[in-house]
């Protein structure tokens, strides 16, 4: 369809491609994340300016940008600053790595968003000082990191694990405040693959089974895949979710046996309906009682089955061994992992090192994870801001970045309207956005994100908004989080305040013309009356205008991307 408009599309795309070749190459190149320039200059030179058309004089691009962005003289000024000056500034500051404006800022920010839920003001500097490889090691070797502060926080809340809302809060608080961010991100990944839901668990008294399953994913998520799969197959929440508890040798139900192969291990196309049925026979015998799963020999099918080419009497042990050793499983899990952590639609070349690691290291998930983080593609331009943030990444990341406090009450409603409630995936395949992140972006999700941003920034600014969703969000010590950042960072000008938040929330990586819109919102906003913040040196800046600047920043397309 749409033949008449195709040449138009091609022409403009070609222009964009050519235009961006220097700074935003395509897949397969060795290009790395953009070098980070310091302070207000942002990362980029004129060639990354949006929408300049092929064959048009550069000046045309500038004037058009100026008009489109509406930034007036500011944009022109930054444009004129140009590549040379930015590079110079970069050289000036490259010797002080542990600042928010360090060369590594984009890579560290990217890593923390993918391997965790983004940075808080305190931990960003820590990771920057560790550098890229040091940060990867710290994130992956989480077993040695104490989480006592998180445990104390959770214990103090006296959560009721037979209440769905409290279960969600428990998961969210872990994402928000764990000192082991990769452990939580990996647990969310497995939750989206090896799904279960509190909507099908046999009533409220069984709700603690959801926590037990979540802890299982946390405990075994980095070990041998066979151990994870064996445990999840006889996990009480899973036995409810996919009906294993009801299956018996007399006439098994096929629910778990099918999804085990289609979704959890090998992928569709690698088995027959007979394998589904025979696998279901082999998996029979498990029931759930109040204290958990039990094996009841009389319910197990004792006869011989023929399953994926193997014949004989089989139990869950045999089935798991066979599916985990299947030649399609390594690639299937690698694809799920890469799509979740790196970018959508990975190539076979992207996946091969992960799949190889799986088979060469005795089905070790940790080996796959290492292969993924050490792939050049992980830090490539193709990966940077390549996935739409999931609702959890957006909500948890925004609260962390602004340094806000919450006991997580009320966040479930916001997440629901954005399309993701932890412990309640839409169906057995998990969240479509985990695989193709565009699925996270709908008009409803967008409106909810923008409105949540409005609420967040007004709370960060120290306001107490009336109405709206009942969400528990506060600032540390009850004082404006923005004033606290100004004081701590010794921010002395409105422009430096913009720089701080561009660094904190966007890795110090924002096109100058777009940064100028934010600066304009802060300094030229009509909202200059009312409360103010005191900058280092004594100058004042409007609190409301600062909040408006932050609102625009966190509503940017750049910020919707992970």
């Amino acid at each position, binding site marked *: 369809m749409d033949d008449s408009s195709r040449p138009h599309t091609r022409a403009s795309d070609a222009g964009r491609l050519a235009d961006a070749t220097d700074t935003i190459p395509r*897949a397969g190149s060795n290009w790395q994340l953009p070098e980070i320039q310091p302070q207000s200059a942002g990362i980029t030179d004129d060639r990354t300016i949006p929408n300049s058309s092929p064959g048009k004089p550069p000046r045309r691009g500038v004037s058009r940008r100026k008009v489109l962005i509406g930034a007036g003289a500011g944009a022109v000024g930054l444009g004129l600053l140009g590549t040379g000056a930015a590079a110079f500034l970069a050289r000036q500051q490259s010797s002080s790595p542990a600042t928010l404006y360090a060369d590594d800022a984009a890579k560290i920010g990217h890593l923390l968003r993918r391997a965790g839920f983004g940075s808080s003001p305190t931990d960003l500097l820590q990771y920057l000082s560790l550098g890229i490889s040091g940060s990867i090691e710290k994130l992956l070797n989480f077993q040695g990191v104490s989480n006592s502060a998180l445990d104390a926080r959770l214990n103090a809340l006296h959560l009721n694990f037979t209440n769905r809302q409290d279960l969600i809060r428990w998961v969210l608080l872990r994402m928000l405040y764990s000192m082991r961010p990769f452990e939580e991100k990996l647990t969310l990944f497995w939750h989206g693959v090896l799904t279960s839901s509190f909507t099908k668990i046999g009533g409220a008294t069984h709700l603690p089974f959801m926590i037990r399953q979540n802890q299982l994913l946390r405990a075994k998520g980095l070990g041998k895949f066979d151990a994870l799969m064996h445990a999840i197959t006889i996990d009480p929440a899973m036995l409810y979710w996919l009906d294993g508890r009801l*299956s018996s040798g007399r006439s098994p139900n096929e629910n778990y046996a099918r999804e085990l192969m289609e979704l959890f291990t090998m992928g569709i196309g690698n088995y027959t309906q007979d394998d589904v049925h025979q696998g279901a026979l082999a998996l029979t015998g498990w029931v759930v009682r109040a204290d958990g799963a039990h094996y009841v020999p009389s319910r197990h099918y004792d006869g011989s089955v023929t399953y994926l080419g193997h014949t004989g009497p089989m139990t869950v042990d045999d089935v798991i061994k066979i599916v985990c050793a299947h030649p399609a499983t390594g690639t299937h899990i690698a694809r799920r992992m890469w799509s979740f952590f790196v970018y959508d639609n990975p190539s076979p070349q992207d996946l091969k090192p992960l799949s190889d690691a799986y088979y060469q290291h005795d089905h070790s998930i940790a080996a796959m994870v290492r292969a993924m983080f050490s792939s050049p593609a992980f830090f490539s331009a193709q990966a940077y801001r390549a996935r739409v943030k999931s609702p959890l990444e957006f909500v948890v990341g925004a609260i962390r970045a602004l340094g806000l406090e919450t006991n997580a009450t009320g966040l479930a409603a916001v997440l629901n309207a954005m399309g993701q409630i932890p412990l309640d995936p839409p169906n057995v395949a998990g969240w479509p956005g985990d695989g193709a992140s565009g699925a996270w972006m709908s008009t409803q999700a967008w*409106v909810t994100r923008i409105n949540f941003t409005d609420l967040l920034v007004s709370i960060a600014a120290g306001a107490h908004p009336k109405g709206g969703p009942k969400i528990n969000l506060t600032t540390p010590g009850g004082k404006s989080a923005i004033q606290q950042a100004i004081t701590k960072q010794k921010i002395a000008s409105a422009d430096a305040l913009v720089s701080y938040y561009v660094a904190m929330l966007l890795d110090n990586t924002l096109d100058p013309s777009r940064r100028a819109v934010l600066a304009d919102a802060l300094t030229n906003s009509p909202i200059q009356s009312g409360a103010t913040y005191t900058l280092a040196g004594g100058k004042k800046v409007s609190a409301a205008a600062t909040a408006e600047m932050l609102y625009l920043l966190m509503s940017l397309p750049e910020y919707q991307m992970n």
Partner: protein
Amino acid sequence: MPNMPDTRGQPCNPFTVPFSRRAMIRDGLLAVSAGMVMPTIFSRAVRAASNAAHEGAHWAQAAQGRTLIVVQMAGGNDGLNTLIPYTDGAYYSARPTLAIAQADALHLNDRLGLHPALKALMPMWQQGHLAAIEGVGYPNPNLSHFAAMDIWQTLDLNGQGGQGWLGKYVAGLVDKDGHPFQSLAVGTSLPVALNAISADVPVVASPSTYRLQPDPEGSSAAKHGNAANARVETLLKLYNTYPRSAPYAALLDATAQAAVDGARQLDAAVASYAPKAQYPNTNFAKGLQVLAEVIVQGLGLRVGYVTLGGFDTHGEQKDTQAGLLQQLAEGLAAFYSDLQGHNAADNVVVMTWSEFGRRVEENASAGTDHGTAAPLFVLGNAVQGGVYGEPPDLTKLDHNGNLVFTTDFRSIYATVLDRWLGAPASAVLGGNYGEQAFLPPA
């Protein structure tokens, strides 16, 4: 999980990128008229006019004002316990614990009856406004939920995905007035059936969460009663100028634009709508009410979409399915009487679908496993009530113990496209699959 092809956003290679046509047109326009801040409604009208000029998208002229509501029964609804062959001994011997007794079925004719939980649909049946089509399926049925859903929604029997059939229809609509709600999915994410390269389909969970916060108090815009304009216009410009080479840039821009357009209209429409029926307190019924609001308030809805999930009844099926069918029937009955009360029912047709029916023989978990062909329903004042299609033979099953389909699902789509929505079915479906008689010829 099947590797779902992404047709909505923008992957890495710009040459294969599906651009939002609207975003493209706005780019082009802005290039020649720099400095003009285009009102959003104007840009939409421009797109509509451009659609007509560039594509010869001519369908939809014949069917102005008509709406199709599609109800997805997700998980695979057990068709045999929905439209019950209550005289068929094979049914009762295959379903020793799950079968609905002849006396309990709501008889439609001397062979078939509805599940008793569908009682709320009986008045529509008696008035001749409910059609049931038997044995609906397709060749070489797929027993995977996700592959089967893709087949039903994209019509690609090989499961390669692509645009949704409703998305293709919506993309071809000519809409001179630039209605943001010519299509609408209830929920938080876009169903595959409405995936389109060149149409922006709004998704709404509830009108109360679909309202953009206005400019903060004290801003000049707020002082002039121009709430939500200044900051939103700034935002839209930032979305429109996000580099198109960036992943998902077109999707982000189109989404923001569609959301802003729609939020304003929906806010105004909802304020003056009062339901003329008591909707049940279920998410499904509330979703139907959102669609009713948009229809009654004349926002130009042509295709509405709502999902009821949970039909994957491998175990303990009886109560689960009964509860879901009751939600379905009572929700649809309230929707219908609300539309009747607003004199809007004549222009609305509802159709249901599910990715498959279930195994003929029940399992030992008091449930049924994945099956194949199943009935679906079409209802509305324009519908010629009755039973259509051919009954599947419960004694001649395929090698998996499943029904062999008798009626191609694409013939149902063709019927609603040709006879109700005024679109040439073959252009949307990519082939001719025959038609059914549950709607009168166009």
